[in-house]
């Protein structure tokens, strides 16, 4: 018997300008024990489907037409109270961010017992016992003690386990997981996915897994539905859809995913999407920057080294005390050494908290290193105290940040954002000249001229990241630091941005430091790569070497976690690994 089925549902959000249709004529179904993936890019309407099934649509959104069936009961026309009774008891839900899904003011126990008692009526004692069992099932060590703790005392992966335990409280028959691993590190993601897979099989629970990540889809789902622009493109067996996609959108989407298994020169673009910006073939570089050539007065070393980092350390104080011995420090970066040659792309890969962004911040001078030195263009820039002198070097080095939404000032026009570094470094003699340069730069990164007078909120994430890149190029740097430049973007947009970076590097002979947690992206972008963990570089090698023959055990571990897109050899792991972060969080007590 089919567990859940939607029949031609349309979901709309009425607004002043008429009805915005978020989901259009969608029919999907899930069987018990099956995992159905819903995949699509942002704005495809995939989360809306999940919210509609569990009837938690943000008002004024509503199901306009169509039916939702749970087993043999129609549920979309039930009363509010009847729908509430379904939630948790029949249909559970897991949200994206474990940091915000738990009430910060209540202990895990309070939250679990409240939910269990509501659904199973076990009384206080019985609910407590059940809570301990549940925590054990989701792999939380020492549940008796741990459940007295508050959410902030758990790590991200552990919190997501608690969230899963909470979703299981009412023993639901269907679980809707909305991007359950997007906020987690790769190794934790793997554990959580394995756990969910295991629970589905053991308890014969059906699951709808909403995600943008093809890797996750490939890893755990049985069947997959591909959505684009509020419509269902294709639905079928995961193996078949990923291995042999029929619909042109699916085909181009899959081709845009960075491949972990081999390096290719350019990413194929998702041509199905209407507003793809074609690369600017006709751009004449000699007119860029009004025909001025770049400042090469500062020479690189004889062996071509542009940046050299020696014994770099960074230490943060995490707890203050009047007594020196009681202060606690975190060594974010420990004794790091590397050098980057002119024209190469140097990658740094590692999980969150490994210190990769801290290095970028020390290199750019946002943090003062605790010890060690940074040599740039033959000069120890970490030791210069004289501001004008440092500025000359800073001009040669610019940074592109991760989040294109918060890294642009929302109250400034694009022209002012891009012109700001030019004005600050006094690189243009007049306002007209700087305006001309900004137009040049926007063209260079593939933006049209009318972007000039707009504000950042009028652009999509990918376009904003282009603006960020234009701003970084405004001082005509020779060295560009990209800190997770595409991790906030959709796959198709990521492909465009990565292509752009590659093009710019070739045309402008840029040197790049590329920071990412995403191994396939690293493989496509970098010449050499450093693998980091706990503030240390564990392995530093040629990229191809790392992917074909990793030396350090942690590199091997990371590579093994990389979602395989190889559909034919897909195997299913049902055993749950002993969680890696158990040890870490237990240690720090």
């Amino acid at each position, binding site marked *: 018997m089919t567990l859940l089925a939607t029949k031609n549902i349309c979901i709309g959000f009425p607004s002043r300008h008429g009805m915005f249709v978020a989901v259009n004529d969608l029919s999907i179904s899930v069987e018990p024990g099956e995992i159905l993936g819903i995949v699509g890019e942002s704005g495809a309407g995939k989360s809306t489907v999940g919210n509609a099934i569990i009837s938690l649509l943000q008002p004024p959104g509503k199901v306009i037409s169509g039916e939702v069936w749970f087993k043999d009961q129609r549920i979309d026309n039930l009363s509010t109270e009847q729908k509430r009774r379904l939630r948790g008891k029949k249909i559970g839900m897991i949200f994206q961010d474990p940091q915000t*899904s738990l009430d910060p003011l209540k202990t895990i126990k309070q939250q679990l017992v409240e939910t269990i008692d*509501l659904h199973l009526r076990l009384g206080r004692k019985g609910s407590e016992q059940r809570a301990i069992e549940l925590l054990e099932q989701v792999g939380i060590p020492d549940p008796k003690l741990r459940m007295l703790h*508050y959410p*902030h005392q758990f790590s991200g992966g552990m919190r997501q386990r608690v969230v899963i335990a*909470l979703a299981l409280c009412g023993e639901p028959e269907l679980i809707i997981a909305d991007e359950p691993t997007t906020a987690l590190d790769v190794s934790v993601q793997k554990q959580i996915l394995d756990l969910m897979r295991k629970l589905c099989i053991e308890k014969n629970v059906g699951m709808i897994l909403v995600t943008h990540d093809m890797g996750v889809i490939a890893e755990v789902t049985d069947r997959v539905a591909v959505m684009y622009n509020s419509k269902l493109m294709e639905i079928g067996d995961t193996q078949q859809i990923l291995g042999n996609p029929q619909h042109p959108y699916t085909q181009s989407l899959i081709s845009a995913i960075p491949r972990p298994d081999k390096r290719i020169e350019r990413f194929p673009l998702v041509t199905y999407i209407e507003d793809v910006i074609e690369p600017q073939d006709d751009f004449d570089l000699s007119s860029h920057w009004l025909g001025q050539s770049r400042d090469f007065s500062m020479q690189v070393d004889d062996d071509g080294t542009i940046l050299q980092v020696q014994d770099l350390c960074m230490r943060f104080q995490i707890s203050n005390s009047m007594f020196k011995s009681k202060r606690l420090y975190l060594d974010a970066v420990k004794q790091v050494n590397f050098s980057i040659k002119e024209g190469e792309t140097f990658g740094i890969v590692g999980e969150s908290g490994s210190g990769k962004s801290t290095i970028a911040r020390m290199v750019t001078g946002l943090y003062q290193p605790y010890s060690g030195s940074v040599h740039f263009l033959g000069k120890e820039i970490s030791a210069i105290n004289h501001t004008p002198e440092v500025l000359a070097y800073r001009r040669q080095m610019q940074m592109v940040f991760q989040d294109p939404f918060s890294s642009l000032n929302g109250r400034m026009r694009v022209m002012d954002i891009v012109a700001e570094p030019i004005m600050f470094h006094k690189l243009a003699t007049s306002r007209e000249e700087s305006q001309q340069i900004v137009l040049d730069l926007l063209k260079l990164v593939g933006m049209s001229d009318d972007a000039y007078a707009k504000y950042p909120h009028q652009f999509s994430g990918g376009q904003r990241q282009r603006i960020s890149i234009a701003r970084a190029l405004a001082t005509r740097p020779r060295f560009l630091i990209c800190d997770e430049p595409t991790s906030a973007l959709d796959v198709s947009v990521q492909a465009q941005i990565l292509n752009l970076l590659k093009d710019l590097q070739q045309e402008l002979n840029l040197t790049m430091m590329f920071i990412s947690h995403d191994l396939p992206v690293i493989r496509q972008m970098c010449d050499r790569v450093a693998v980091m963990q706990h503030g240390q570089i564990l392995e530093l090698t040629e990229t191809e070497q790392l992917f074909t023959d990793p030396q350090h055990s942690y590199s091997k571990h990371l590579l093994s976690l990389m979602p395989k897109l190889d559909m034919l050899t897909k195997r299913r792991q049902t055993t749950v690994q002993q969680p890696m972060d158990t040890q870490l969080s237990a240690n*720090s007590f």
Partner: protein
Amino acid sequence: MFSFLVKRLLQSIVVLIAVALIAFSLFKFVGDPINNMVGQDTTLDEREALRERLGLNDPFPIQFYHFITDAAVGDFGISYRHKIPVSDLIAERAPATLELSIISALLAVFIGIPMGVYTAIHRSGFISRSFMTLSLVGISLPTFLIGILFIFLFGVILRWLPTFGRGEVVAIGWWTTGLLTWSGIKSLILPSITLALFQMTLIMRLVRTEMLEVLCTDYIKFARARGLKENAVNFGHALKNTLIPVITIIGLQLGLVMAFAIITETVFQWPGMGMLFIQSIEEVDVPVMAAYLMMISLIFVGINLLVDILYAYVDPRLTIDGGSKHG
């Protein structure tokens, strides 16, 4: 936690000393105290002798030291106008003001918070909209105007409630209370509502805004997704999270109730400290002004200290070391 308390206490003491300095400078700069004390016919020599005897020729730091040490034990000298110790004056007037302020504060908190919660949950209901409109009146009309309107409506036209004074009071030791007699309670109604109205509307709007924000968070959505009942979601999870930021503002506002009492007391001829203060200003009764200033600041600092402790008590993220998540 302990070092946090010590730090807060030290900060409070610094604030109090700063206020004491301002209060003390009143003596120096608001007229000559000798002139205020003696008659026209006192000779210059007699004035000088009195000045010497009262220690007014001592250097500033020594005078200030005497002021602080005396103030610390509640001795603010003798009122110029009433010729009795300031501490006696204040002790006599304090119960009236404290009774009025505390009742108003309770009204503001216990009506304001539920109204805020109600308007947040039923965002577009008719009653919510009426509350919101009425609250605009509460915020925009000045206290004295509301007081006068109340007097006009309930005292003059309807003749339901008395319009001035405390009514009959009962003395319990040195404390006098109007809460034990019917006329005392009736007299309290108009002034306490007048005083509470502004804070009440402010608290209501604050709670509403904060609660709306909390209701949009993931953990509330997740609580709903677990099938928890509306009441459990709203009062079990949302309310507590709402109150954390609200506590700070409420603390500050309750201090303000005391300060606002001056106007209300004047309008309703309430025999409290506010009236005493206004009269002292008119008569340049500096010791009373200084004492009042010190007392109000002591109450402000005390409330803030309490708020800080309460804050740490309510929010586990502040008391329990969050270090474990750094792993």
